[in-house]
């Protein structure tokens, strides 16, 4: 009871903030205990991301940005500190509850696409819905809709091996979208793509962010890619070193038009 009071106090305090902030992190610490030595990956990170923001996370390797993303993605729990996701404190939830949060609130896009091999695009997109108990019919409908929104209509039955890198990543974006998450976490989504396809993917993100006001957290180490976001948070030594708005923001749609025409592996460019 006492614990509950203690916990609920700051929450009520931040109530007006919580409605605007989809991610609110307070004094987040993460320490890895490697037996002899302890690695302090995060040393007190406090930040908040508002609903509908498009934020890039930057930082050298070892800066703590990956650890932060794992915590933000509810794949791990902080050693200390608090993490409010969509108004809910998720820093001390059980594995089971975290899985539920990941399922409903978070969409992941990875560098290596991480699609299930020998599984159709549609089935890949359906995957989160399978774990939230959506009926087969609704799953198919929503997965089709998600694929349509990333410009992959007609590719539902294709296996990942039959799709180009850009197309595979768009399937992954559709999978992240399909359960209407609060945020999309994209971990180096363009890392395995050529620059042209990278712009293409950024266009998808910008469109989803602009049209649907989906909150996006994008980890990248490429400054060029970070310029597609509205705000860049830079990590260093387990702390936020810089947090600033992007002044000369790039518009991916326009950038794409300016790119020299290339013989790419895609012939369905008109869809995107």
């Amino acid at each position, binding site marked *: 009871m006492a614990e509950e009071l203690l916990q609920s106090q700051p929450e009520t305090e931040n109530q007006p903030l919580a409605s605007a902030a989809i991610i609110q992190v307070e004094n987040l610490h993460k320490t890895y205990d490697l037996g002899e030595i302890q690695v302090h990956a995060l040393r007190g990170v406090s930040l908040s991301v508002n609903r509908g923001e498009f934020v890039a996370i930057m930082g050298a390797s070892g800066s703590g940005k990956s650890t932060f993303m*794992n915590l933000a*993605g509810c*794949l*791990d729990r902080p050693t200390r500190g608090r993490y409010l996701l969509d108004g809910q404190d998720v820093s001390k939830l059980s*594995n*089971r509850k975290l*899985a*539920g949060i*990941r*399922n*409903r609130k978070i969409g*992941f896009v*990875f560098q290596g696409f*991480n*699609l*299930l*091999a*020998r*599984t159709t695009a549609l089935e890949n997109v359906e*995957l*989160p819905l*399978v*774990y*939230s*108990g959506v009926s087969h019919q609704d799953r198919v409908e929503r997965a089709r809709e998600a694929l349509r929104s990333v410009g992959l209509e007609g590719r539902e039955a294709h296996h990942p091996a039959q799709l180009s890198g850009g197309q595979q990543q768009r399937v992954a974006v559709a*999978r992240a979208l399909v*359960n209407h998450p609060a945020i999309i976490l994209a971990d180096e989504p363009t890392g395995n793509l050529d620059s042209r396809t990278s712009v293409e993917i950024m266009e998808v993100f910008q469109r989803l962010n602009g049209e649907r006001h989906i909150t996006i957290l994008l980890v990248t180490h490429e400054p060029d890619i970070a310029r597609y976001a509205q705000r860049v948070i830079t990590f260093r030594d387990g702390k936020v070193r810089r947090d600033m708005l992007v002044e000369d923001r790039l518009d991916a749609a326009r950038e794409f038009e300016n790119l020299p025409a290339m013989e790419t592996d895609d012939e369905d460019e008109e869809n995107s």
Partner: protein
Amino acid sequence: MDFPAVLRVAVRALARNKMRTILTMLGIIIGVGAVICTVAIGEGASHQIQESLRNLGDNLVFVAAGSVNQHGVHMGSSATKTLTAGDATAILQQVPLITRVSPGVMASAQVVYGNQNWFTHIRGVGPSYLEIRHWPIQEGSSFTQHDVDSSADVCLVGLTVVQNLFGDEDPLGKIIRVQNLPFRVVGVLVSKGQSPFGQDEDDTIIMPYTTVQKKIAGISWLNFITTSASSQESIRPAELQIASLIRERHHLRPDEDDDFIIRSPTDLAETQAQSGRIMTLLLASIASVSLLVGGIGIMNIMLVSVTERTREIGVRMAVGATERDVQMQFLSEAFVLSLLGGAVGVLGGVAGSLAVSSMLSWPTRVPIEAIGVAVLFSAGVGIFFGYLPARKAAHLDPIEALRYE
């Protein structure tokens, strides 16, 4: 995730790698097939024994005149002269568990028809003998109580006798001669084949027991009494009741040995069937070792599969699969794998036992329970050996799993 959905996911995952799936199932297929095959062969043998038991007679209780200890000398069976037709009648009247009784006299004699002759067993019995033995008449009819009362010169012939005496001729109504006395053939017995003890049952002539007593053997006593108990369960109590009844009728003192022997061949054959069953059990347990090996094979492949699909597990966890979901997925893959293997193994086992019975002409019989047990057992093997890999999968750290190359 509900169970059908879990199963669907499992089936799809297995369908994605058909070759590996088939190879993994092979162990279970062979194991179940071997078990089904051995059980089928064993069951077939014991079924055959039971079949010939039924052939022997209806809950047969057999009373033979026999072994009496006279002044320290054991006489062989049929050596006593104390068993009488009166005993037979008394059994029927005073032992309610006995439903049918037939007195019996044995003789062996040269039988002559025309220029043919044949040495055979002659059985003198009552009219209910054929009912007790489940022995129908193929042609003609049996003799009656009236024939017994009048010691009529009639006989029934077995097929072996028919073949040796009559060849292609119709024996019905013909006169055969035994010890120069004429007997008319009134019926031909249906072939009964071999007895469970290897004798040719068709090599016989059956007559009213009074006829054999007076005209062939020249005796006034009986060699045996064939009776039929009301049920399998009443055989044992009926035996005891018959024994005390005959002892009383023969005025035997408590310290005297029986002057008769009671046997029920059912018991004997039951013992044979029992030892057959033990043999089957032994073979089946050897065969089930291969089922165990199959299970270990499943565990092996599932462990490899978990490692191989670490990334997939990571992805599933990232999009919201709980540890339980992942565990259920791998467990149900193992379950489906072994259940399917079990089903194919059953088909293989049935096919194998059919092949055995057609090529080696051994009787085989696949009991339904064995199929059920085999399928259930293989599913159990799958769950048992799938548990460890499934647990391993469920306990993966999603972050590590996603990073796994």
